[in-house]
């Protein structure tokens, strides 16, 4: 029998104060150096970053940390969650991310998020540039409509199946099937209503245009990467966001959809590696390492 292969990524739990409540948060990490903090998409969890967490070329230069938001993956839900429908709000989401940065002692990380994570990183860049060393928005938009889908929270429908099938189609057709199915599987494991409750955070429409003008990329460099095949966050919505942030770097990634880091990591790393290389000196100086 072949010996077990241990991955370099390690998972742990932490209890962290979030808005007056003690939240039990699950996170995974690997590597050393300035921190790259990763935020998963709506209705998913930190497993979406497993290929990044096990990429030794990245983790030689960065301490990569990915956590599950409360209600997601292996993090506990908050409050009396059985008494009201789950709804994520921007200010609360922002508080959670800042609490994790402080609670885990992550210093000033570069923060990288996808989809709803790609939205909150822009908000953090706009309002909390003193707490982060850079922002990488994957599938980030300035203004988007059409994303609300009430079937995703209708109890007459198997929401696990629906979320899985729905997210399968959000990937690019060129992405290897095994990875598209892997992401769909994670979605199928989300709790009922959480995906829809996360999407509510975007609002209808999602409009971050006024906030984006506040971002100062000299203090907090910003890179935006969006898949050509993303029909939820359209490439033109990312270009619009980039145009509103002076100094932001915008990359449209051919043959990639809405979930680059999980649907086709090998392709995604071609685009994200140069961004990380460029951001590292700035991040290292702010993190207090060489």
């Amino acid at each position, binding site marked *: 029998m072949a010996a077990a292969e241990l991955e370099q990524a390690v998972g742990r739990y932490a209890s962290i104060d979030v808005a007056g409540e003690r939240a039990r948060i699950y996170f995974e990490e690997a590597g050393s150096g300035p921190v790259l903090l990763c935020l998963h998409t709506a209705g998913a969890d930190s497993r979406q970053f497993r290929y990044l967490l096990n990429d030794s070329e990245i983790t030689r230069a960065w301490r990569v940390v990915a956590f599950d938001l409360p209600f997601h993956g292996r993090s506990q839900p908050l409050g009396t969650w059985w008494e009201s429908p789950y709804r994520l709000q921007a200010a609360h989401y922002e508080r959670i991310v800042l609490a994790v940065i402080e609670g885990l002692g992550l210093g000033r990380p570069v923060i990288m998020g996808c989809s709803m994570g790609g939205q909150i990183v822009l908000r953090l860049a706009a309002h909390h540039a003193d707490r982060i060393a850079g922002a990488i928005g994957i599938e980030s938009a300035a203004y988007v409509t059409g994303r609300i889908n009430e079937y995703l929270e209708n109890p007459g429908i198997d929401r696990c199946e629906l979320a899985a099938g729905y997210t399968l189609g959000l990937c690019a057709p060129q992405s290897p099937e095994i990875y598209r199915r892997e992401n769909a599987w994670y979605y199928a494991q989300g709790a009922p209503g959480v995906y829809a409750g996360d999407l509510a955070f975007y609002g209808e429409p999602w409009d971050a245009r006024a906030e984006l003008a506040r971002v100062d990329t000299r203090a907090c460099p910003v890179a935006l990467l969006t898949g050509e095949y993303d*029909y939820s966050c359209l490439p033109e919505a990312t270009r619009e966001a980039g145009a509103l942030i002076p100094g932001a770097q915008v990359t449209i990634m051919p043959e990639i959809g809405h979930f680059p880091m999980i649907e086709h990591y090998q392709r995604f790393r071609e685009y994200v590696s140069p961004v990380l290389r460029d951001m590292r000196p700035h991040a290292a100086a702010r993190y207090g390492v060489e």
Partner: protein
Amino acid sequence: MMDAWVSLLPGAVNGDREFACAARFFSADILLESGTRQWLVRIRDGRVAALLDAPRFDTPWDFALRAPEDVWERFTRALPPPLFTDIWAMRMRVPEFHWEGNTMLAVRHARAVARMTELLRVSREQCVGSR
């Protein structure tokens, strides 16, 4: 063009393992429309039991998927362009694509419905191969 692809759809659907898995509890009458052409795909217990070409107006159906032929043409390419990759993408971003009727039933079996439409790509490919 679409006529030939749809005529091969029952074989493609009934021979597909993913459809068989996703559609185990699925029965429905689906109206498929391409421009002025219509078909009714009768699904019973996860299999295509019948395909009606140009069903009469008084043939009831549960839900309909309607689009102009050029939309189906882009959707059924082996490598569809962005926005034409699946029925959810088209529902959000292609205004000429319509999904109507008992959409609750369609969404309950959304993976089976989506897979059935994806199999139009397989039947289109078969048409090209048999030429």
